């Protein structure tokens, strides 16, 4: 059993935000709060595979270098028609848009899950 599976089995889900999900897919992984291209480069070097990135707005276009490697994206503003949602769909990863997270830095490096709900809604959970 891989570490992620064992963590998932024992973990409890704590809901931290709701939003609109760009694809009807669940994603789980370590969250990284990214605000600059420099942080994107750092994550690329470190290994972006399977990470979930949290960004401030749906106009964020500097994620291109790592989009194909990510498990998912969480965005504080924006919706399904935002460029970020359209581009992440092309890379077949879900983006949870318009989450209105007030202290994004508190979620950095936490293990999280994006889960689709009814209609176009989705929820962000922290696994504890």
């Amino acid at each position: 059993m891989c570490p992620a599976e064992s963590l998932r089995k024992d973990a409890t889900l704590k809901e931290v935000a709701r939003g609109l999900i760009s694809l009807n897919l669940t994603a789980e992984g370590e969250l990284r709060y990214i605000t600059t291209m420099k942080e994107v480069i750092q994550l690329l070097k470190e290994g972006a595979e399977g990470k979930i990135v949290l960004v401030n707005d749906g106009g964020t276009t500097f994620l291109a270098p790592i989009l194909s490697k990510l498990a998912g994206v969480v965005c504080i503003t924006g919706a399904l028609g935002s460029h970020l949602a359209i581009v992440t769909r092309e890379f077949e990863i879900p983006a949870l848009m318009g989450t209105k997270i007030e202290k994004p830095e508190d979620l950095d490096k936490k293990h999280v899950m994006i889960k689709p709900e009814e209609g176009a809604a989705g929820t962000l959970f922290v696994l504890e």
Partner: protein
Amino acid sequence: MIQILEEIQPDDIEVHGGKAVNLVKLHHLGFIIPKGFSVSSTAFVQMVESCRQLKDTLQSVDESDEFEEILKLSEIAQNVVAGYRIPEYLESEISEGFDHISESNVHGFAVRSSATIEDSRDISFAGQAESFLCLKDKSDIIECVKNVWQSIFSERAIVYLKTKNIPMKQVKMAVLVQEMIPADVSGVMFTANVVNKNTDEILINATWGLGDALVSGKIVPDTYILKKYPLSVVQRELGRKEFKSIPETNRSVMIDTPRERREIFSLDDQMLHDIAEIGVKIEEAMECPQDIEWCIKPDGGLVILQSRPITTLSAP
């Protein structure tokens, strides 16, 4: 080099790009689009061909897989374009195009990308190149044509193209100059539900003012899901619509949306029905589900700003 939008042929994609050609198809089918003209991709190719350093830089981008090197090459390419002087004959043709569409326009013009790989069935290129809004003067329009060319060499655009395995030498950029529409409400409509890939549903985002606040993801718009047959609303989510984009000289600006406008939906049932009905007609005419940018003028008329195939419905 310049072609009035209505005179472009629907198969002119290599010359005028995906965005222009899709708009022209809609115009010929009777949908309302903003007046405008295209600066053909030939002008872009001539610019690239005339700059040896730019050609060499783009060749290096195509040969490199090192992200940090690509960032440096992007900066070099952008600097070369910034220093490029648009030839006088092209300035003069843009000027003529401007004169042709400037009659009675008081809201200025938008300058937008229409790359030959853009808005196709596989590649949206969404948000990768720059658009410039509310431009009033010829000189600003000419400068922004160059800025749009430059933006295809931005870090984000180059990396997007690399991840899609598109060589830089294959990319040609036409530029659209169109009248600004002082929209009361703007939005994006997917004529299939892109979340669950249900082609019997329509998904609409809408907000007050110009559409750049929505597509750039600065705000959370209203979201609606409708069934197509018969047309009926199945879900409504009120967006926060924190800001509203309005036209100013040479730019759009974000202002706070008055509280009472945030708390009501930007589209009523009749408007929703009308927009969705047009979406169904456009999908039928374009022969596949579409991602459509639209706006509503102060007189209530619906204008189609862009239509492109939804790129993601075939994904698992």
